[in-house]
C-alpha cells in the first residue's frame, strides 16, 4: 500500500522532517505543515533516541551514574559530568582541592570551545556552505588531542569524579593548551571572514526565528538561545559554581532576538572561553587533584538541585536521595528540551530554508533532549 502525495483541504502539504534527515542533527522528527514553502505548523516528535537514562540512573551508584551523562549531551560531556559531580559533592559536603577546580573549569571551557566549533561547522553545513565544517574540525581535533592526552577519550570523557578529577593532568597539558590558544586566536578571524561577513549568510540569518525576551523566558530558553534575546541567564555569572566567581569574563548578551544574534552570542562566547582559559592556564595550583572520598558514596536524605552552564544552556540535575547508595530519582533538566519547545514559535511563518537555519542555530543535541 502507498500514500499518494496530496494536499489537505487548505492546500497545505504535511511533511515529515526526520527522523533521518540531514538537518535535524540526529533523530529528531518534526511534522511540518507547509503552505507553499511557508511553514504554518510544526510539531516536534521526540523519543527516537530516548535511552531511559533517568530510569537507569536509579539503579546506578553515585559514582557510576555520572558516566551516563557523558552520553547525554556528548558535545559538552565534561560539563555534564561537572554538574553531577557538583551535585554529589554538595550533598556530601566534600571540599574539593583547588587544583581540581582549576582543571575542571579549564576542561569545561575547552569543551565549550569544541562544542561551539562543531556547532559552527554543522550550522554552516545546514545553510549549504560545506567547507566551514572542515575548518571547524581542524581546530576541534587539536582540542580532542589535548583531551585525549589527559582523559584518554575524545568525546565521552568520564573524567570528573565526585571529589575532583580522575587523574592528574598530563605534563604537556599546559603547553599544548597555550599553543592551542595562540592557534585558535588566529583561526577565529578566519571563521568570521568565511561565514559571519558573508552577505548571503547574513541575509539568511537576519530577521528570522524571532523570539522576544518575554517569550524566551516563558518558553524556558536558556544559553545562547535566550542570551540572543537579551535574557541574562548565564549560570556561571548568576549562580557561580566552582571557581567561576574568581575569573573575569563577560556574559555575552545580544538584543536582536533573531537567529543572527544567537549566532553572534556563540561566536563571542568562544572569545570569552578563550579569555577564561588564558586567565587560568598559568595559575593551576600544585597539590592534590582529588579529595579523599569513601569508596561507597551514600548521599543524605533530601533533594539536591545543581545547575551548570553547558554549551547549549542551563543543565539542571535534580537528585532525590533516600539515603542509599543509589539515587531515588534523578531528573536532568536538559537545555535542549526547553529550547526545542520554542522552535514552533520561532519557525511559524518562515520558509523551509529558515527552519533549517533556525534549527542549526539552536544547536540541538538530540540525545540531550530525549535522554
Amino acid at each position, binding site marked *: 500500500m502507498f500514500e499518494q502525495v496530496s494536499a489537505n483541504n487548505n492546500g497545505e502539504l504535511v511533511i515529515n522532517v526526520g527522523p533521518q534527515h540531514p538537518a535535524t542533527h540526529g533523530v529528531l522528527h518534526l511534522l511540518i505543515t507547509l503552505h507553499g514553502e511557508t511553514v504554518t505548523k510544526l510539531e516536534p516528535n521526540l523519543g527516537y533516541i530516548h535511552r531511559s537514562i533517568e530510569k537507569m540512573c536509579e539503579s546506578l551508584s553515585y559514582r557510576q551514574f555520572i558516566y551516563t551523562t557523558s552520553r547525554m549531551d556528548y558535545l559538552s560531556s565534561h560539563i555534564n559530568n561537572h554538574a553531577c559531580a557538583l551535585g554529589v559533592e554538595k550533598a556530601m559536603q566534600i571540599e574539593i582541592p583547588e587544583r581540581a577546580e582549576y582543571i575542571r573549569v579549564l576542561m569545561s571551557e575547552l569543551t565549550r570551545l569544541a562544542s561551539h566549533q562543531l556547532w559552527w561547522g554543522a550550522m554552516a553545513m545546514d545553510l549549504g556552505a560545506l567547507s566551514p565544517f572542515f575548518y571547524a574540525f581542524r581546530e576541534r581535533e587539536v582540542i580532542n588531542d589535548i583531551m585525549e592526552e589527559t582523559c584518554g577519550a575524545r568525546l565521552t570523557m568520564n573524567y570528573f569524579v565526585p571529589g575532583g578529577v580522575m587523574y592528574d593532568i598530563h605534563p604537556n597539558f599546559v603547553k599544548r593548551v597555550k599553543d592551542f590558544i595562540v592557534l585558535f586566536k588566529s583561526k577565529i578571524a578566519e571563521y568570521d571572514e568565511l561565514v559571519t561577513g558573508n552577505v548571503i549568510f547574513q541575509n539568511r540569518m537576519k530577521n528570522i526565528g524571532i523570539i522576544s525576551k518575554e517569550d524566551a523566558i516563558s518558553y*524556558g530558553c536558556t544559553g545562547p538561545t535566550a542570551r540572543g534575546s537579551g535574557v*541574562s541567564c548565564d549560570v556561571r555569572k548568576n549562580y557561580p559554581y566552582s571557581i567561576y566567581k574568581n575569573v573575569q569574563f563577560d556574559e555575552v548578551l545580544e538584543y536582536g532576538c533573531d537567529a543572527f544574534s544567537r549566532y553572534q552570542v556563540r561566536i563571542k562566547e568562544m572569545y570569552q572561553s578563550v579569555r577564561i582559559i588564558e586567565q587560568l592556564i598559568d595559575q593551576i595550583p600544585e597539590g592534590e587533584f582529588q579529595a579523599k572520598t569513601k569508596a561507597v558514596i551514600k548521599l543524605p536524605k533530601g533533594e539536591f538541585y545543581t545547575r551548570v552552564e553547558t554549551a547549549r544552556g542551563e543543565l539542571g540535575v535534580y537528585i532525590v536521595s533516600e539515603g542509599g547508595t543509589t539515587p531515588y530519582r534523578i531528573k536532568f*533538566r536538559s537545555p535542549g528540551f526547553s529550547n526545542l519547545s520554542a522552535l514552533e514559535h520561532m519557525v511559524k511563518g518562515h520558509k523551509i530554508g529558515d527552519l533549517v537555519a533556525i534549527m542549526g542555530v539552536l544547536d540541538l543535541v538530540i540525545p540531550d533532549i530525549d535522554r
Partner: protein
Amino acid sequence: MENEELIAQVQTRFPEASIVLGNDFPEVSIDSKQLLPVLQTLKTEPSLAFNFLFCETCVDWKTHFTMVYHLESTTHRHNLVIKANLDRVQPEIETACHLYRAAELHEREIFDLFGIIFTNHPHLRRILLTDDWVGYPLRKDYDDPINMIKL
C-alpha cells in the same frame, strides 16, 4: 530577595502552604487544587515575579506522586520550589502551560513517563515513547520483563 525574606512573603500570601528551606531553594508545599492560583500570583506579583519555570518534574513516592516545579525570577534572581502531592490512583493536576509555555513539553514528558493527567493541556499525548506503549516507565512499580534486563 534573600531566602528568609522570600519565605516570609510567600507565607503571608499563602497561609495554608507549608514552607521549608530545602538544601538549595525554599520549598513550598501546596494543595494540588491550588496550583494554578498560586502560580498565577507568583508570576504576576511584581515583588516576586517568578517568570521562569526552569524545571518541572515528578517524583513517585510509591504512596503518592509529588509534582515539583522549579521557579526563578529573572529580575530578582530568587528561586522557589513548588510541590504538590497527587493521588496515586488518579493523578490529576491543572496544567501550567498557559502561564509558562515551557511547561507544555515538560508536562507531555511527565504524562508519558509517569502517567499524570494534566487537565486543560492542549495536546496531552505521549512524546518520548511510542503511542502504543503500555505502562509508565518511571513509576517505581513499572516492570518490563522483555526489554529490561536487571543487573
